[in-house]
């Protein structure tokens, strides 16, 4: 029932508004003084020369890809777990086959080195 989520909805709205409202309220109380040197990026007190963007290791991306797939897998496990008593042994075998294939995928990814940082 959607109506039972009304409390969650209220809390969501409050949670979302909390940050902007506090920041706007604080505007009246906090000091604000524009100085160019203040807004330089921090780099241990040294002047910054180059931008950091576009210099990210590929590995972060591979980890994210692998995560996404196993995340999808866990989503399939939720309904299985929640109705386990109804599905019984049949469901167990079903999911067993499902997971077995994914374990193969995991082993592949593992030995391919996708999950290790060391190269």
């Amino acid at each position, binding site marked *: 029932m*959607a109506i039972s989520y009304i409390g969650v909805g209220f809390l969501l709205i409050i949670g979302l508004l909390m940050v902007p409202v506090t920041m706007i309220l604080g505007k009246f109380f906090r000091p604000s003084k524009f100085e160019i040197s203040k807004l330089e990026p921090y780099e241990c007190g040294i002047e910054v020369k180059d931008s950091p963007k576009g210099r990210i290791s*590929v590995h972060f991306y591979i980890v994210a890809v692998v995560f996404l797939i196993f995340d999808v897998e866990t989503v399939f496990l939720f309904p299985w777990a929640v109705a386990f008593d*109804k599905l019984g042994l049949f469901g167990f075998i079903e999911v067993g086959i499902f997971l077995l294939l994914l374990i193969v995928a995991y082993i592949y990814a593992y030995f391919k080195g996708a999950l290790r940082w060391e190269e």
Partner: protein
Amino acid sequence: MIVFVVLVSVLIVFFSIMVVSLKHPISSAVSLLIAFLLLAIFYLLYGAEFVAAVQVLIYAGGIMVLYLMGVMFTDSEWIKITRQTHLQAWLALFLVLVFFGYFGHKLYHSQYPAPAVKRTEISIAKKSETEKKLPYLQRETNPRSVSVALFKDYIYPFEIASVLLTVAVVGGVFLAKKEV
């Protein structure tokens, strides 16, 4: 209720337009994220609780991370130059209109709420041992009904999904590793 549905729908459309119209790739990505979250609320309003949670878990929590990393991974300046050409835009508009017409037509002829689909009737047939013990299990909830549908009615799609995921892992890792 209907007010919320309309409000959320309008917001979804608005943020979807923002996704394609905003200049900066990260801003578009954030709009997409917000659109996904609103879509989850939309599902929730229709009582599809489980799908809403999955929407947040997979689309917002998984795919968007990938998107954002992809955007961060490349220089954003480069993406700005290669925007869609005019021809593609017109083509897209044409396709949008076609789809809009199709779904509008379908929507017009549909009935709400949707008629119940006949399911394998195991849930009512016999109570499991645990169900007798734990009274709350007898309550029909959305996740449990999804589960029964998924594991009883749609076994083959479910098993094929695992093959697909395996292929996805292998493919993803293979491609990513080849690049390096």
